């Protein structure tokens, strides 16, 4: 589940964001508690708590005192906006770099997309 590429709390935050984006977690859904999360993924609960704290700070989750943590109503829209901004730099530009290196032309890429090969 987790790797050494980045701090685990960040990976936890990212995976919950992915769940929100995909709709696996819906607005006002309760997320697992820190302890449940720690036991499920076999990680230290402090690490899980740090990941959740970051999501609360970013407004993806909100806390209900004594009950738990829930997905913010606007979380999905907000995350989509952020990811859309990054889409062209992180995904498209990288793909074009790779295409240039291996000699695939933009025309071929366009044809691939227009051809509806997927």
């Amino acid at each position, binding site marked *: 589940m987790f790797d050494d590429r980045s*701090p685990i709390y960040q990976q936890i935050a990212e995976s919950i964001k992915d769940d929100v984006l995909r709709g696996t977690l819906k607005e006002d859904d309760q997320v697992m508690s820190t*302890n449940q999360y720690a036991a499920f993924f*076999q990680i230290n609960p402090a690490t899980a708590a740090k990941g959740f704290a970051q999501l609360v700070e970013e407004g993806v989750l909100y806390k209900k005192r004594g009950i738990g943590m829930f997905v913010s109503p606007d979380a999905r829209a907000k995350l989509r906006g952020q990811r859309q901004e990054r889409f062209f730099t992180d995904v498209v530009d990288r793909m074009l770099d790779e295409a240039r290196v291996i000699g695939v032309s933009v025309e071929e890429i366009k044809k691939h997309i227009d051809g509806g090969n997927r």
Partner: protein
Amino acid sequence: MISLRDLTVRYGATTAVDSISVDLAPGKIYGLLGRNGSGKTSLLSVLSAYRKPSSGSVTIDGSDPFENRELMRDIVFVRDALDAVEGDRAGTLLDLHARMRPSWDAELAAKLVATFELDLRKRVGALSRGQRSSLGVVIGLASRAPLTILDEVYLGMDAAARTAFYREMLADYLEHPRTIILSTHLIQEVADLLEEVVIIDRGRLVVHEDTDTFRSRGVAVTGPADVVTVFAEGRTVLAEQSLGRTRQVTLYGGLDADDRERAESAGLTLTPVGIQDLFVHLTSPEHNLEAVR
């Protein structure tokens, strides 16, 4: 709070623990990492009041644990030797601990005995290496002591038994938070469970920080030799290797966003260094520790 101040343990002319100062806040799972002979067991023996330091001090919530009956009741120290009479049956040993410790959880002990498939009728001396270790884990966890010290308790356990040990330890910690110090050199297996790591090498403290921070400290930089050399200048290099005109250096200290951008625009490849590799580099004999500390 556990506070070590200039803690030193000497055996004749050998210095096993060399002036270590560290504070450990209560309620966390700590990993004490070090190679064989790095001083882990000596350090833990002082911490658990099994021996007096040669100099320096240990205090737990302000008091010296040595010959301190009340404090010692709150500490369980499980080590290789098991501190048992070889002729005693495993079950007798557990009964003894159950009587000595007011916090003993018999239900947990029974559950762990079943998990590890321990035969309590066997004599301690007749147990296999792995079974002895499992018995140690039962004692360590079922004691449920506010300070639980497990010194390389996994020796001889197979992968399945170790996984069971980590799972049971975490599960019980979640139910009953307490300070757990786990000494090990199998870092990769337990890293995710540790809130903080304490690394010692040749008796000296090398690193004490939260595991996630430590994890992000290592980075391998690969690229054309001259470019790599310029980039690495002024940084702590833990290891290096060359293949033809390609050079790779392992840097310690983490890179900020500017560093990363500079590296990538110079055509260098950055790859994370696993926590186990980081530990190996930091404690390798040829490494100059002073550069890191």
